[in-house]
Structure formats: C-alpha cells, structure tokens
C-alpha cells in the first residue's frame, strides 16, 4: 500500500517538475508562448489543460488496454489517440456548455485550442511507452498538466513584469520571451536533484 502511494508521489513530482512537459520535453510550446501574456489567461489555459489531459489520459489508457492491445494493433496508437482526443474535447465542450456554463465561459476559447495541443497526445503516448496502468496514467497526466500550468503561469508573471523593463531593441517581443524560457529551463534543471 505505502509503496504504491510512494510510487505515485514520485510520478507526481517527476512529471510536474523534473521532466517538465514544456521545459524539458518541449511539448505544448505554442500555447506556452502564445497564451502567456497575462497571468489570468495563462491560468485559464492551464486549468483547461489539466482538465483535458486528466480526462484524455483516462480515455486513451482505457482504449489502449481494451481495444488496441487485445487486437494487437498497438501501432495504430497515434492516429487513434488523435481521433479520440479531438472527439473528447468536442464532447467536453458540449457537456460544459450544457451543464457547467460558468466553467465553459471561464475556459472560453482555450478549450477547443487544446484539441491540437501536442502535450495532450504526448502524455497519452508516454503513458503507453512507460507501460503505466490506467490509474497511474491518470496521475501522470494530471501531474504533467500541473507542470504545464505552473510553468505557463510563471512565464506569464515574468512577461507582465518585463512589460515595464527597458529591453534592448533587438530583443523586444518574442526573443526576450524565448531567452526567459531558456533561463527557466535551466532553473528547472535544479529540480533533478529532488529524487
């Protein structure tokens, strides 16, 4: 019992901080750079990503275990996962619009944006490669998405501060953001001593 809890904790920390989805795996860079201008929108995007990744890891895990594996067609995982994730996001959007309007409005345009986010597919495939079960896979998915949220909110905060700084002409705009992201990646390397 305690061993499995400990394992889950290790996965939580490893996926969210040490093997951070953005800063060490380079998944989901487009929302990372695109939706990190304001902390509030970044937090909204992060919430949407946590929501979708946790759900999609559950569904893709189940499909892998009960459909692809028994039929011996695991090589179809990428295309099937893409299909399933896209459909899932659509479904979640419909469901939220009907039953949880406040959340639907809070997530807004970010929800459909995630359909094509590679972080979602990346987690699903990592789960398969590491041979996680469905439950562990969900924990891994949640941790990865939490890591995404942490990093995007930090970057958004930094960008808000940088607005008022005197940035050299050549570095204005995207270059300084990418430099910041690089420094953040180096800083996150510090977490590798955690486990």
């Amino acid at each position, binding site marked *: 019992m305690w061993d499995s809890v400990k394992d889950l904790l290790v996965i939580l920390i490893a996926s969210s901080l040490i093997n951070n989805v953005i800063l060490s795996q380079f998944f989901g860079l487009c929302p990372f750079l695109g939706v990190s201008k304001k902390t509030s929108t970044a937090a909204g995007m992060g919430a949407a990503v946590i929501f979708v990744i946790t759900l999609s890891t559950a569904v893709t895990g189940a*499909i892998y275990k009960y459909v692809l594996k028994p039929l011996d*067609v695991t090589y*179809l995982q990428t*295309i*099937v996962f893409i*299909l399933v994730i896209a459909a899932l996001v659509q*479904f979640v959007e*419909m469901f939220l619009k009907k039953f949880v309007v406040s959340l639907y409005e809070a997530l807004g345009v970010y929800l459909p944006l995630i359909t094509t986010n590679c972080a979602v597919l990346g987690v699903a495939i990592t789960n398969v490669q590491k041979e996680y079960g469905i439950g562990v896979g969900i924990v891994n998915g949640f941790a990865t998405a939490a890591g995404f949220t942490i990093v995007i909110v930090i970057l958004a905060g930094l960008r808000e501060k940088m607005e008022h700084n005197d940035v050299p002409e050549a570095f204005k705009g995207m270059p300084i953001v990418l430099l910041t992201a690089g420094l953040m990646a180096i800083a996150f390397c510090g977490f590798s001593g955690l486990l």
Partner: protein
Amino acid sequence: MSITGILTATLIIGAIGLFIGLFLGAAAIKFKVQVDEKEEAVLAALPGNNCGGCGYPGCSGLAAAIAKGEAAVNACPVGGEAVGKTISGIMGVEAEESVHKVAFVHCKGDCGKTTLDYEYTGIEDCRMLSFVPGGGPKSCNYGCLGFGSCVKVCPFDAIHVENGIAVVDREKCRACGKCVEVCPKNLISLVPYDAKHIVACSSKDKGPVTMKACTTGCIGCGLCKKVCPADAVTIENFHAVIDQDKCTGCGACKEKCPKDAII
C-alpha cells in the same frame, strides 16, 4: 504487412471513427443548448460572409454582441441600412440613421496622366512598393501604385485596377473597410454613396511638384474654395478637401478646377 493487416487497421480505425461520430452526433442532440432566439434570428439576418469589418470575430460574434445589446443594431458595415432595419425589427430597437457608404480611391492619376520615374520589376504588392525609392515608380509620391493590394483583400470583388489605378465598383462595394486598411498610401476612404463631388487626389506636395508629376493632381490653387457658394471646400497641405455635410452638389468646383481633379 499482409493484406489482412491493412484491412484490420482500416476496420478498427473505421469502427472507432464511426463510434465517435455517432457518439458526438448523439451528444450534440442530447446536449443541445437553447441559443437565444434573437441571436439566431440576428445571425440569419446578417450577410454571413464573416469579413470582420464590424470588429467582432465573424458574423456569429456580432450576432451574440447585438443580442446582448453590446453592439449597435446597425453595426454591420456590409449589410448597411437594410440589414440594420431588419435587425432593429428583431431587437425591437430603433436603428440610428446610418449612411450608405462606399470606398473611394482618392487618385485618378492613371497611366495616361502620370509618368513613371523608373521601371519596377518585383513583387507585385503595394505594401512592398512603399519600401522602394520614391515610394514606388510613379512620379507622384501620393498616387495609387496600381499593384492591387486592395483588390486582393476585397471580399466582394468590388475593387479593380483599371489603367494603372484602383477603381471601386460602387454597386458592389459594401464598405467593410478592408481596402482602407491595406492601402499603404492611405488613398482609400469611405465616402457617402450619394456624395456629389469628391477630390480625387491625395497629393500633399506643393503645386509645382504635383503639376510636374501628374496632369490631374490637385495643386491646391484654391479656385474651388473661392467658387464654392456653400463654403464646403478647405485647402489643407496644398490639397482641397470637400466637407460632404456642407456640399450642396452645385458642381461649381468641378467646373472651375483647372486640373479636373474633382469628380
């Protein structure tokens, strides 16, 4: 891979696709959200070509804003008065008076009237040309370049380059303002459809410079200002401007203009 492998893969993807399709279809019916009836009716009344001229993301965005009362009922520049009236009927609000406007290119210096300083062979796009020496090959620095950036951007096929200058088809133009935005020379503006007389030149050069560059350029001589009985003409930067609110359409300025720059 054997043929059975291909068939299995096709079947599995097909089956999953079919399942997802049915599932989403069922969900769409089950979770159908009652959209505001007004919003649907407004959306149906809008032109539906999603040009973005109103400033909202597409017609559905504007429909939602109108239904919420955030946008004016005649906010659609394309539909103009007719659509504004329909929507005001739906919303039960009086439409404010909206003037039917069309785009107008303030230049008539076509190939016969202006000269070329040099031959330009490069990317055929006005925005590109504004970076080349002299702001384009035409001797007039303010004139229409005639490479048709406005033509490409027009969603209604209402603007065309004829004999080296852009000309707006007044009947087709819906005043969405895309060409106004794209023109690097800022030659195009929205004018009232029934404007009687407009100065078809944008040259802000001094008279002699304009005179050299184009046979029909406004030289800012001020004859139109003197002759106008309604005091509607002003001269700014060696260039006449007609105030459409004051213009009575008598045509005295057009007759007097020595350069035939007023239409």
